């Protein structure tokens, strides 16, 4: 007789093999569901997607390049340079007779890039710094955090202006100086989170199992920081775009022929008294649309990843 060949045993075995295991939901999956249910955030993702789509495929429809000057119309921009479908200048002309449509595309691309790269720089530096300070602790921690406090005491825009005046203007310096001021708050947030994580049981367990300190930092603490870090960086992106516009507005940011939304706005503001208000209003609407959608997305992420903090 074969062991365990009773009918009941077979039925139970059938049941067990047929049972569909309940799929567990990870924290990220949970967060994703909450984010998708947030109408404002989803609408913002849609609008931002449209803007990105416009930046990508917009150039295909451009009739003029961003450096070409329309000599026929540049004599009387206030009257002939207004936005029009007939002559191919969908957004009108800028003060020098260049096509604003092409320039707005270029500027939007720059501003989005600056936002992402600036936030990414701040994220990497801030996380590494805060992680080390919080995990090592003791004297190292207080020295590192004192340094952050002193830097935080200097007005950030002044640091940016100083850096750009001293080191000269370039794309690279712009990213460096934006990253240089953005990481401070990030490092404080990461440090606080690390401090509370490192006394938890699973870290002790890892240490008892003989995992090296570096590996504990990278494999056990870092993944647990992701929620906080994502939320804060999503709020950093609009801040970086704001800061870049601020610098470009001062004439210290990106230089010609490159342009950014902040620069176009400042040019438009300079000429609005001559009846060419589209030069101000078009880049301004793009700018405000990007910032508002970014805020809503950041809020949505915070609600999704950190539900108790609503």
């Amino acid at each position, binding site marked *: 007789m074969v062991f365990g060949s009773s009918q009941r045993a077979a039925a139970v075995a059938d049941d067990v093999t047929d049972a569909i295991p309940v799929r567990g939901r990870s924290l990220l999956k949970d967060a994703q569901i909450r984010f998708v249910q947030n109408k404002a955030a989803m609408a913002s993702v849609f609008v931002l997607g449209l803007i990105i789509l416009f930046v990508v495929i917009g150039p295909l429809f451009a009739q003029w390049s961003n450096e070409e000057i329309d000599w026929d119309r540049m004599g009387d921009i206030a009257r002939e340079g207004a936005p029009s479908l007939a002559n191919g200048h969908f957004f009108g002309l800028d003060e020098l007779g260049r096509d604003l449509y092409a320039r707005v595309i270029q500027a939007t691309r720059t501003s989005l890039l600056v936002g992402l790269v600036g936030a990414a720089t701040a994220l990497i530096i801030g996380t590494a710094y805060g992680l080390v300070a919080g995990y090592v602790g003791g004297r190292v921690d207080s020295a590192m955090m004192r340094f952050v406090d002193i830097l935080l005491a200097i007005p950030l825009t002044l640091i940016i202006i100083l850096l750009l005046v001293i080191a000269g203007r370039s794309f690279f310096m712009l990213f460096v100086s934006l990253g240089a001021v953005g990481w401070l708050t990030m490092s404080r947030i990461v440090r606080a989170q690390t401090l509370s994580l490192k006394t938890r049981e699973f870290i002790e367990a890892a240490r008892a199992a003989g995992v090296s300190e570096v590996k504990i930092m990278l494999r056990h603490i870092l993944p647990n920081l992701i929620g906080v870090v994502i939320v804060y960086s999503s709020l950093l992106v609009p801040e970086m775009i704001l800061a870049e516009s601020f610098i470009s507005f001062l004439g210290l940011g990106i230089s010609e022929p490159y342009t950014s939304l902040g620069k176009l706005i400042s040019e*438009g503001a300079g000429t609005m008294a001559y009846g060419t208000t589209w030069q101000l209003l078009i880049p301004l609407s793009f700018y405000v649309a990007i910032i508002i959608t970014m805020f809503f997305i950041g809020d949505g992420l915070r609600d999704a990843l950190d539900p108790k903090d609503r």
Partner: protein
Amino acid sequence: MISYIIRRLLIAIPTILILIVASFFLIHFAPGGPFTSERPLPPQVLANIEARYGLDQPLWKQLWDYLTNIVLHFDFGPSFKFKDRDVNDIIAQGFPISLTYGSLAFIAASVVGIVLGVVAAIRHNSWIDYAAVSMGIGAQALPNFIMGPILILVFTLWLGWLPGGGWNGGQWQYLIMPVIALSTSYMGNIARLTRSSMLEVLNSNFIRTARAKGLPTRSVIWRHAMKPMLLPVVSYLGPVFVYVLTGSVFVDLYFSTGGLGQAYVGSALSRDYAVLLGVTILYGSLTVVVNLITDLAYAWFDPKIRY
């Protein structure tokens, strides 16, 4: 409490000193001096000018003189660009202007922001709440350099109600637009911060207790919810005050108000390092002092804070 204040002061003083030294070296290692121009000066002339401003001394000597002058005489030295003015004059001229519209903008932002946030939280999930939240986010997206041209466009060019710039001794017509432009985005921030803080407080146990024992809503809100609600807001107001003062750069440029921001940008672009350094130190020290006050206010607001 007193020992806490003293300890904080002892931290603040070296912070300011480090700030001065760091800015001093940063600026002195920058390429190009105030006297480099397209037409190079004859070396003897340049040497003479540099001797006059003490730039021929070794760097540590310059730093020492600079520091002792500030500490003993509160003297930031002469301007490199304007021969008849020193840094103190420039600051004394611009700072009161910045301070005037800065303080007004600060008051406007905090009062309107807090009222908006509290009302939104009390009427949670009603149309008032949604309107206030949308206004808050909209306002956040309108920093002063966006608000400036919008205001000028609407009120000066289209409606013709207000003068487009100038200061004129701080008459109210000249003040309205700078104050609105400067305060809008901070107002949005404060409103949203207040709202979420108020919601958290209103959902806490001690408020439920207060309601349960039958207190009228008015007294629940004013007597019990107000103080804990203000905690996170107060810690944000300190930085806002500094931002409002240092952010005046754009307001000065758009509205030609003649505040310190104009002097700062002008000196940065013309490499007038003395003015640049003086204004940086002023702003930095102001930040340190305001942070100190914020921390003390925080300690006063929150009895749980240990000194």
